[in-house]
């Protein structure tokens, strides 16, 4: 009994027909190339998405920094954290810094110094 491969070789249409004729090749090629040329250019060599996203992120950061410089910092407000000790809100003599102070039940004083201009 012939095996599967022998049968497939026997029924292989390319044994009789051979390659695609040059005429048919040209017809198909023309159809495909014409369709490609008719379509508007969709993309460039470099994908614009990641570049645009980076630009947008950088612009957002710059806008945020710029706004922080323009908008004056809010005055320090007393923080009212229930369950903790005395709060002693103070504001620094320098306008760029805001201090928040509070005392824990154990007596530890905690002072947060907020630098609104992000100077380190």
């Amino acid at each position, binding site marked *: *009994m*012939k095996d*599967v*491969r022998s*049968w*497939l*070789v*026997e*029924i*292989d*249409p*390319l044994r009789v*027909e051979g*390659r*695609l004729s040059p005429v*048919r*090749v040209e017809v*198909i*090629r023309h*159809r*495909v*190339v*014409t*369709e*490609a*040329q008719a*379509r*508007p*250019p*969709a*993309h*460039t*060599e*470099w*994908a614009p998405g*990641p570049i645009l996203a980076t630009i947008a992120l950088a612009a957002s950061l710059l806008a945020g920094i710029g706004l922080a410089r323009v908008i004056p910092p809010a005055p320090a407000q007393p923080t009212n954290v229930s369950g903790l000790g005395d709060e002693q809100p103070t504001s620094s003599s320098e306008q760029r810094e805001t201090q928040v102070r509070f005392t824990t039940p154990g007596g530890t004083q905690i002072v947060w110094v907020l630098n609104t201009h992000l100077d380190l």
Partner: protein
Amino acid sequence: MALGAAVVGSSGEQVGRLFDSHHQRLYRLARRMSSTAEDAQDLLQETFLRVVRTSASVPHGASNEEAWLVRIMVNVCRTRWHQRANRRRLDAFNTTKSEPSSSRSPEAALVARALVWQALSRLAPRRRAIVVMCELEGMPVPDTARQLGIAAVTVRWHLSRGRRELLQIITRIEGGRQ
């Protein structure tokens, strides 16, 4: 991310280059997967038209391009196969009724070949592609797996199932000849 990879959708020249490089190989596979030469040419054309219409990037390298095109072709074949599912069930019903002749006449040989061809055509496109590529084209299993973008174990499984399905038809044909 395909930064730097060529995107085909807009360049006739790029599509033409792809076509010139790969159409013969793709047509051989298409013809062996199609019932008629016209279907095969249509499959070849539709494959490249899908390349034109897709926004995906063409992989670098000739072998990667070929594998990518083969996968597109199998997907096109699969889409059509599903669309013709009802008609295939009717054809299968008719096929089971037309048993091969027990004589050794030339007509019987033609019927037998037609039955084997029909059995091959009834395989799902991916399985059919695997049987053609491995059995007929002699492509090793790892290469077939790479071209189709699937695991080698999946190729072996489909190959085994495809052989079994064809063998059922062949056994009936050979049994009728004896």
